[in-house]
């Protein structure tokens, strides 16, 4: 499995904490696997919960019109890139 960057570790832990995924640890998340459907099997309730956690921790609101949800949540890696690009300085 690919190495996780520091931000990927952090976003991965945020996902686990925000969504109460007690059974897994950050090390279990494949950074390239889909977060929704195939990978962690997350859905729209989780997407809203995650959007809130991200806005609190990184100071920006997720929008699905600049980029589709599918792209933002494509994987832990994609989500981390999105956070890196949009987080408040």
């Amino acid at each position, binding site marked *: 499995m690919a190495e996780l960057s520091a931000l990927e570790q952090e976003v991965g832990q945020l996902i686990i904490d925000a969504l109460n995924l007690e*059974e897994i640890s950050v090390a279990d998340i494949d950074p390239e696997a889909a977060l929704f*459907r*195939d990978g962690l*099997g997350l*859905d*729209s*309730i989780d*997407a*809203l*919960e995650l*959007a*809130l956690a991200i*806005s609190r921790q990184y100071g920006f*609101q*997720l*929008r*699905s*019109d600049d980029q589709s*949800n599918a792209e933002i949540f494509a994987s832990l890696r994609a989500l981390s890139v999105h956070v890196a690009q949009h987080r408040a300085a």
Partner: protein
Amino acid sequence: MKSELLPLLRHHDSDAPFIWRQGQAISRARFLAQARQLAARLPEAGAAINLCEDRYHFLLAFVALALRGQVNLLPPDRAPHTLAMLAEAHPGSYALVDAPLAGMAFVQLTVSPDTLPSISDAPSAPLIPADQTVATVFTSGSTGHSQPNHKSWAELYQGAMLNLAALGLHEADGTLLATVPAQHMYGLELSVLLPLLSGLAVEAGRPFFPADLQHALSILPEPRWLISTPLHLRSCLRAEMVWPPLAGIVSATAPLDPDLATQLEQWFGCPLHEIYGSSETGAIATRRTAEGQAWQLHAGLVLQADGDAAWRVSGGHLAAPVRLNDRLAQTPDGCFRLLGRERDLIKIAGKRASLADLNRQLLAVPGVVDGSFVPPEEAEPSRLQAVVVAPGMTARAVLDALQLRIDAAFLPRPLHLVEKLPRNPTGKLHREVLCGFIASLK
């Protein structure tokens, strides 16, 4: 007796905006001309699956199908299994889509307004027979065993009139923004039928994140109404953003906590009305939740006791009495209170499922020998759990197979793989035993 005719859309002011899309208005006249052209291009069939998520596309497909006398099949979810079963049950049917879905066996036609040139003449509003079946909606959000509900135009039309009256919107000419899919009864009634049959215009998009809603509302003309669900409204409140002025909020799919309703009214500075209904009945009652828990039945509807603790509703837009799935108590002033759902029904994120159906789907997964969802304590749990016997399979593999069959909201989290279920000698699984069994796994 010759069937009565009813208008398919209100057409008093044909130049008035009917649909808004990112700040651009589409007038009623232009919409109708495009719907007529789309109707002329549709193949011969009895019914078509209207899968459009964009409300402009959905409305074009909805009206075009009605003009051709074809039924709008509105699937409860987009699981490939659900769509395949729906197509199979309607031989010769096809689907109308925003963009083709991969891996589907049925014919898909893309609804694209750009290919439907706008004709300048303003033909009169079309009339269709009141008894024509215009749409089929489905009860359960979970499985292929959901029950179809056939909706005549008379029922939908009269239901829309009752909704407009109950919400005080019959003379309104504002705008609607909806977070709910048009394929569900609530979304169909509030975001499709209301604009068709009133002076209200609707935004084409289906915003998802709070920031999407905020942006979409900010570019809609006032007065604006938000059509949403407790799930989305709660997330809007928690996002602590500044909202453009709203004229009103409508919520349905699950009862809203009164404290939350009060907070929403304060934060958005507008009244919040809840709607009570079901796929079988459509909307039948409203309440201003911040002011009281009792529901006011729509005008002309009547509740009647139906045996032990069950109720039927009749009158109004309903052609025949319908049995309700909720337990309720009538109040002396003709209102009612909800007492809770029947045991087998559960709701997650506004989607309804039957535990028996979910268990049938689980047991139908190849490799699953035995298994059961755990009946939740609450009628509206946040997630379900399941225990499954599937030798040689991982939990992931069972979930992958299951998500082809049921809506993602009902996927068990967690799914416990076990060697044997704690069935009693007659093969029954008691909830208490099952819960104790799960506790012992941890």
